[in-house]
């Protein structure tokens, strides 16, 4: 059976985000695209196990994550490539915002433990709910929440993103003001 047009469309719709996820996980565009390709092949081969009406994107992310994990385990025994060719092949290399910022970010991201990184990428960048991310990672919702929190805290630390200057001596005043300003 050929792919139903809706299935095909849903698959292609998921590709940009899948790639972003794969690049962030693997740090390498070529490997990431191979991962996405492998994911789509698996998905097509197992399309019968996809339940129409459920979230295609989440299904594909699950496949990709599992592929990455098994490949990662294999590769780890070979060479650890932590810096170097990292994300070099990205075509739309950010001219818009500073390259430094981008480099800094991917370096920081690479420092996170894998569990935390993927949780943060799923929830913080791919737009999945905690529940969906938990299903993709096959763990409890609470686990995802704490991974995301830890990842955020650590990243903010690494990137020196902090609003310490927003909390000067007049913190109580500000707190009151902003409390009034929020719904």
């Amino acid at each position, binding site marked *: 059976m050929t792919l139903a047009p809706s299935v095909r469309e849903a698959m292609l719709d998921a590709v940009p985000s899948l790639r972003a996820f794969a690049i962030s996980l693997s740090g390498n565009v070529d490997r990431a695209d191979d991962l996405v390709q492998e994911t789509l092949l698996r998905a097509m081969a197992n399309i019968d196990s996809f339940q129409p009406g459920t979230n295609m994107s989440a299904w594909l992310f699950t496949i990709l994550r599992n592929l990455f994990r098994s490949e990662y385990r294999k590769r780890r025994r070979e060479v650890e490539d932590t810096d170097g060719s990292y994300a070099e092949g990205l075509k739309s290399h950010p001219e818009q915002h500073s390259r430094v910022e981008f480099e800094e970010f991917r370096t920081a991201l690479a420092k996170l433990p894998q569990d935390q990184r993927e949780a943060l990428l799923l929830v913080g960048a791919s737009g999945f709910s905690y529940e969906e991310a938990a299903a993709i990672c096959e763990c409890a919702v609470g686990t995802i929440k704490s991974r995301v929190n830890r990842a955020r*805290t650590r990243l903010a630390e690494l990137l020196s993103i902090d609003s*310490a200057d927003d909390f000067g001596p007049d913190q109580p005043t500000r707190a009151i003001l902003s409390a009034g300003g929020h719904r």
Partner: protein
Amino acid sequence: MQGDVQTRKARGRLSREALVKLGKVLETYFDDVRKEGVPDRFKDLLDQYDARKAQGQSGQQAAERTEGGSTGPLEERHDKGST
């Protein structure tokens, strides 16, 4: 300032502002990739799959019709651009 960072780290909580900033950085990072859209290789991949399936089906029908006629291997026609 350093002291503030330390306390916040200890509590493991980020301010709303820090969260927003972080969220923006993450989104920007992802959007750089998303902007590239769907590379042709992936569209081709699905096309190839469909073509193979369609061919498999009509090939089968043809084989039934001609009953042992020379339906030849039609399969390897669409592997251009697979790398």
